[in-house]
């Protein structure tokens, strides 16, 4: 026994200190991917650094989200290679970006694509190219595994997010009535994806009232249904039903007819598609290049970044549309472009929570009557039978109150405020969540997605930008007002085709 008593005591105290530290383990984490500093430079029209070099290039794509990448994908598929794509962030993908740690890859925003219907020709074309669809059969490994979704309602988990437990006969009747109404709209064939295909034939009057108002007119007043309708609007549009155009609300339910139990998803979400696209067009992409100014120069366009100037015959503007007012010379103010602020968080869990309510872990987990949207399990798509550590992506559209006020809130409150709010929300269903989580990274998005507010779908400005021809082309799901993969891809490909046409290449 060589250890002296002093050493023994020291060891003991150290061990005790270690135990204490373990007992009060702090949850690590920070804000990530903050973009508002760059955004505010654009808003405040900060001076542009002088160009040190000039490049002559036939086509410039501004923005490397799904729309911009899809434009590049199309150009390259047409054999056109004289273009660059300028992306302000260090990582392309926009809302289809991801992160990765030692546990799993995980999405930062968009995390799935519904199994596309027959009209989504471009989506099917891409998925055939990527091996997701082969000989008319969807690759089982990319379809969301069972069990897909669950809802915590009345103190227990139910399968599926549409409330199905504790409904009164009246609730059921109302649900049935809504289903019939949506089916009737679906059968008109005018609620399509891409929305552009059926828009002109669709009932324009729906865009003049809110979805909440429309539901009231149909006599839909039951609490679980109203909650569910609001949940769907918050989930897809970041807005309450009262702030959503009835047209968009109906589109959500009437545009899809499932041919296969889906959706398509990957651990890193839609960043999987981003990665596949980058494998094809990555050599054209320049990251960390924030476009500061787009000006006319004779029949051409001058695209200025801090330190460089691109002179292009055509520009595909695939960045968020609202920035056009700040970036493009002589571009007037936009009226009907409202954006929803969001917060997403990735939580690293060292073990699964042990709740009082047992239910198998699902992919998408929603708590009824919570202001948040719940969480998606990044390791759900694993082929392993045994999963200990995992990553949850927590979604929260700040939809109560005005977007401007919520943006201020996003900026004002610190990381611990938001992580505490998230844990508090999860604690209701997972009482031991704090003991499971080791890290919370939070991404704040002031303008996460265009909001399909009342009047926005048929807004003349939006229609004009969608139909623009010539050499300045707009491409973003903002033009549809529906922030989904299919719309972004469609707008990107359309713009690429128009750009080629304007250059005399078809």
């Amino acid at each position, binding site marked *: 026994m060589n250890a002296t008593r002093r050493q023994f005591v020291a060891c003991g105290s150290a061990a005790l200190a270690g135990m204490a530290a373990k007992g009060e383990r702090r949850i690590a984490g920070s804000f990530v991917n903050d973009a508002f500093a760059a955004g505010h430079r654009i808003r405040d029209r900060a001076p542009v650094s002088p160009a040190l070099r000039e490049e002559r290039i036939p086509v410039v794509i501004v923005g490397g989200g799904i729309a911009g990448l899809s434009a590049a994908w199309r150009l390259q598929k047409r054999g056109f290679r004289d273009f660059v794509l300028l992306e302000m962030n260090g990582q392309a993908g926009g809302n289809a970006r991801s992160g990765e740690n030692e546990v799993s890859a995980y999405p930062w925003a968009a995390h799935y694509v519904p199994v596309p219907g027959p009209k989504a020709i471009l989506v099917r074309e891409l998925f055939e190219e990527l091996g997701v669809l082969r000989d008319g059969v969807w690759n*089982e*490994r990319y*379809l*969301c*595994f*069972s*069990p*897909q979704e669950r809802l915590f309602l009345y103190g227990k988990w139910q399968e599926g997010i549409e409330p199905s437990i504790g409904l009164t006969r009246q609730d059921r009747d109302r649900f049935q009535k809504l289903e019939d109404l949506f089916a009737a709209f679906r059968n008109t064939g005018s609620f399509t994806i891409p929305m552009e295909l059926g828009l002109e034939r669709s009932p324009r009057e729906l865009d003049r009232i809110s979805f909440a108002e429309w539901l009231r007119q149909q006599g839909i007043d039951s609490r679980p249904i109203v909650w569910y309708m609001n949940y769907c609007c918050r989930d897809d549009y970041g807005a309450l039903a009262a702030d959503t155009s009835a047209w968009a609300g109906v589109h959500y339910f009437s545009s899809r007819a499932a041919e*296969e*139990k*889906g959706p398509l998803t990957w651990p890193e979400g839609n960043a999987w598609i981003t990665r596949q696209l980058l494998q094809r067009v990555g050599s054209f992409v320049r990251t960390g290049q924030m476009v500061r100014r787009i000006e006319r120069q004779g029949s051409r366009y001058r695209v200025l970044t801090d330190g460089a100037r691109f002179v292009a015959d055509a520009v595909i503007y695939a960045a968020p549309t609202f920035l056009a007012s700040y970036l493009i010379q002589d571009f007037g103010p936009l009226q009907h472009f409202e954006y929803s602020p969001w917060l997403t968080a990735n939580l690293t869990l060292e073990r699964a929570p042990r709740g*009082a309510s047992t239910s*198998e872990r699902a992919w998408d987990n929603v708590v009824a009557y919570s202001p948040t949207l719940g969480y998606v399990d990044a390791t759900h798509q*694993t*082929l*392993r*039978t*045994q*999963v200990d550590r995992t990553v949850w992506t927590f979604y929260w559209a700040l939809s109560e109150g005005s977007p401007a006020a919520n943006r201020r809130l996003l900026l004002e409150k610190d990381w611990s405020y938001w992580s505490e709010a998230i844990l508090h929300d999860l604690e209701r269903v997972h009482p031991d969540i704090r003991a499971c989580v080791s890290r919370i990274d939070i991404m704040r998005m002031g303008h996460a997605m265009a909001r399909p507010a009342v009047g926005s779908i048929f807004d003349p400005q939006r229609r004009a930008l969608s139909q623009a021809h010539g050499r300045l082309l707009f491409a973003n799901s903002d033009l549809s007002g529906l922030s989904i993969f299919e719309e972004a891809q469609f707008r990107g490909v359309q713009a690429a085709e128009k750009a080629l046409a304007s250059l005399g290449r078809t």
Partner: protein
Amino acid sequence: MGLLLFISVFLISACGLIYELVAGTLASYLVGDSVFQFSTIIGCYLFSMGIGSALSRYIHRGLVHRFIWIELMIGLIGGFSSALLFLAFAYTQAFALLMYFIVTVIGVLVGLEIPLLMRIVRERFDFRDAVAHVLTFDYIGALAASLLFPIILVPKLGLVRSAMLFGIVNAGVALWSTELFAAQLGARRLLRGMSILVLAVLLAGMLEAKRITAVAEDNIYADEIIFARDTRYQHIVLTRFKDDLRLFLNSHLQFSSRDEYRYHESLVHPGLSAVPAPRRVLVLGGGDGLALREILKYPQIETVTLVDLDPEMTRLFSTNPMLTALNRRSFLSPKVHVVNADAFPWIDADPNSFDFIVVDFPDPTNYALGKLYTTAFYRAVARHLSQQGLLVVQSTSPMFARDSFWCIDATLRQAGLKTYPYHVYVPSFGEWGFVLAGLRDYTTPKSLPPGLRFLSVATLPTLFQFPPDMAAIPMPANTLNDQVLVRAYDKDWKDISH
């Protein structure tokens, strides 16, 4: 003095109610029908309290002395009530009898408490005040106990330790009363000694509580448990009764040594004997090494790869003498290579092909296991089949889980394989099913390895015949995105148990 006294009232009242709640909850857990249990227990308890109150008039002298004895008895009986009832349920037929007996005894003793206390305090307080105060604290104690019990005690301590904790409170009140009423007590030393003894016994009980529940749980298994371990992946239990050794994984029976040869001969030989010149064999699951034992009966086989998730399982079956006797030391064969890995990612990554593949997983009781019964998995497995190769899948019971069995068959066919379903009778399991599958046609083999106890060449074709009550039914295939099998399995076995 007054306040301390009323705190005692508060505590003993809480204790009394806790024992009643423990009995009610335990009976509901173990026997079911909580309305009946709670109703009869409350009735019995209150009635017994009435008896206690009535009996109190026969106590004339030494009120404090008797009060302390009563506290110690309640502490001891109440404290151990939960543990006793658990053991009674596991080991005797007399659970209900013992339960009502215990409830009655505690009820009588608790019924004595308050009248005695009132008479004790009558000497110091105005009678009107005494009644008001004692009853007030009595009812407050009941409220505290009724809230504490479901919110903190049951979730944090469990029933056994909750009862013991309140036994300690009773004994504590007894010890404290020897101080409180020192003036009225003659022989204090004995009472204090007894109080300390009861406290010690209950404290020890609390520390040992875990073992008591484990002993009680033992009896959920019919036979003596000779090995039990929680591994990272599962709960392994081995039981033995005379020469019958049984393995349970997460409480599901995996084999009984008396008839496992029927299962394992049927799992391996109908397929393997039909493969010409098999050299390489793969076993997915099967960490007990019993399928290996059958496979090693073919001398021409060069390598057998066994993939099982749980290293503790394969280690146990390679080292424990009783188990290696059963699997004939199959894990020690130089031909056998053990890989401890999750089967699906492993098979995706492995480049080798095999002449025979045994898929022997636990039944698809949940979505995690269900992934190993999907078209995606069988497609991945089929890619490893050599040209003449075959694979066999343990496919649960075509009798008890008919939908599930035929769903597995449909899934294999959907994955592009030809299937040959068959079934055997294994007494400890009942009718059990397997599906042979391959890219080629199959006919039953004309020879089998020597020394089989169950299979013969002559009876082999009969395994492939299904009587009407197990005959094929159309089922959809099980896929990763729509695990119909897990739902079907759940329903099949629920239907059986009702």
